[in-house]
């Protein structure tokens, strides 16, 4: 990039620091107040405690919601991985305009605002008389994360050299064997990073879930319900735990994401 004069450089660093503060400040405040109290406009530095965490463990509603979220996330990840891989293989191995249209359809729920994806599914389920439950939530999440998984796997598939596959076929492997022993191992890290990203998205999905869920709630919905009552330490504790979990997941995902070579 162009070498900037020092005022330019300072300005740009300041903006970056400000954005970083905007992005992480709120999270830090929440984490901080999971350990400390705030009384009469002052932080009570001696109030450090883990009470909020202990209280959390007794809250059955939250534990149930966490269970639901994990079940939904795992199911959505499995479904979107299977479908995403199949669609990527289909796109990669077929010709013509049809595959482009299919791709557009797959991308739609990811590009549209979640409210539209959620509402269209809500109306759809009602029209076919399908009761809303965790199953509908899984369908909603799968539809939403599919584009991301598909894109990730397709990108890897396209870097795969055709000669590898030809060699395998030449050596007498059938199509399934070629897929199993050549294609799949090469896709493994792409599949893994896609799975982690998809899980993180599903774990956090709020808008679609809100529209397609039945009586059961996932963690974000539960949090939303709790927040209407106000700012309590146990919400902060929950927030801290969730953030710790997401950060770990993201770090693992980053490890396997393919970084384009710097020029």
């Amino acid at each position, binding site marked *: 990039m162009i070498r900037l*004069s020092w005022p330019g450089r300072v300005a740009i660093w300041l903006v970056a620091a400000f954005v970083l503060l905007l992005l992480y400040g709120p999270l830090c405040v929440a984490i901080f107040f999971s350990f400390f109290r705030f009384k009469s406009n002052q932080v009570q530095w001696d109030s450090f405690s883990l009470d909020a965490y202990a209280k959390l463990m007794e809250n059955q509603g939250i534990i149930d919601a966490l269970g639901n979220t994990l079940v939904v996330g795992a199911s959505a990840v499995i479904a979107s991985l299977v479908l995403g891989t199949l669609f990527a293989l289909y796109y990669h191995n077929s010709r013509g305009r049809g595959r482009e249209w299919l791709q557009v359809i797959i991308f739609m729920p990811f590009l549209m605002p979640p409210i539209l994806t959620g509402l269209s599914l809500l109306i*759809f389920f009602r029209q076919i008389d399908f009761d809303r439950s965790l199953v509908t939530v899984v369908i909603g999440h799968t539809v939403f994360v599919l584009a991301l998984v598909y894109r990730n796997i397709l990108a890897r598939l396209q870097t795969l050299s055709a000669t590898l596959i030809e060699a395998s076929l030449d050596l007498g492997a059938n199509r399934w064997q070629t897929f199993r022993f050549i294609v799949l191992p090469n896709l493994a890290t792409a599949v893994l990073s896609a799975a982690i990203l998809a899980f993180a*998205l599903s774990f956090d999905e709020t808008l679609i879930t809100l529209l397609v869920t039945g009586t059961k709630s996932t963690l974000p919905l539960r949090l939303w319900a709790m927040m209407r009552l106000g700012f309590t330490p146990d919400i902060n504790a929950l927030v801290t735990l969730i953030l710790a979990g997401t950060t770990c997941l993201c770090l693992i995902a980053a490890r396997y994401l393919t970084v384009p070579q710097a020029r």
Partner: protein
Amino acid sequence: MTANESLRRVAARPARGEGGLRKRRGALVSAAAWTLPVAFILVPLLLFTVQSFFQVEGTDIVYRLTLKNYVRFFTDPTFYDTFGWSCLLALGVAVLTVLLGYPVAYLLASLGGRTKYVVAFIFVIPLLMSYIIKIYAIRSILGGNGFLNRILLQLGLIDEPWTFLVFNLNAVLLTLTVLLVPFAILPIFVALEKIPRNLLEASADLGASAWQTFRTIVLPLSLQGVVIGASCAFVLALGDFVTPQMVGGVSGFTFGRIIYSQFGTAFNWPFGAALSVILLLVVLLALVSAARFARPRFTA
């Protein structure tokens, strides 16, 4: 046709007599591939478009085609005013995210080697961190009784808590900007990365100042990233209904909230569907024009 491709074609050529079978299998595979996306994406979208032409009488949906819902939207100022305001709000969010995101993306692009990807990751990771938690945290900071006010009061900088930061459209604008900034950073960063460095050197060699090089080379070439980022932020801001509900209070009533209320308290699905169709049209317009604009006209 490359040699590779022609080889593959030859290898894929079916033995005599198998042609029909293979073709049929191809059609079968295509049909299988289309089934699920059509059933769970296309059909639901069509269904809600159809539903927008029905209407509600009492508590039942009457399945007779009518334009009443659309007429209601275009004649009742409550709806089209809110719609206009929400579009402006979403535009404001898009502008703010780009203004904040561009310098960050620029900084990232000017960092060297692997560092830039690590730092980029730090800026983008909050996208995966709980959306609802961030709204909640922002509200707890900005609120009349919130963290920011308490600090300012404590420091003696203000005498009374600021109340203009929460439960109004300002708050919605601020919160959405914070939430959506990464969506602007990422595409701008990618666009900046693609600019061949020798163009910048050539420009400097030919005597252009840093500002001139930026104005005439970097900015035009990164504009597609700006457009993609801005349209992402616009679309997501326009469709959001939880953020306005959490921080918007009574005055922060946006289009997304109106749509959502049609499916909840107001219980008028066909009208909600009609409003969603209008939202969908605006979103498609934004996305299509972004895609048009973002098509590369210059390739390195």
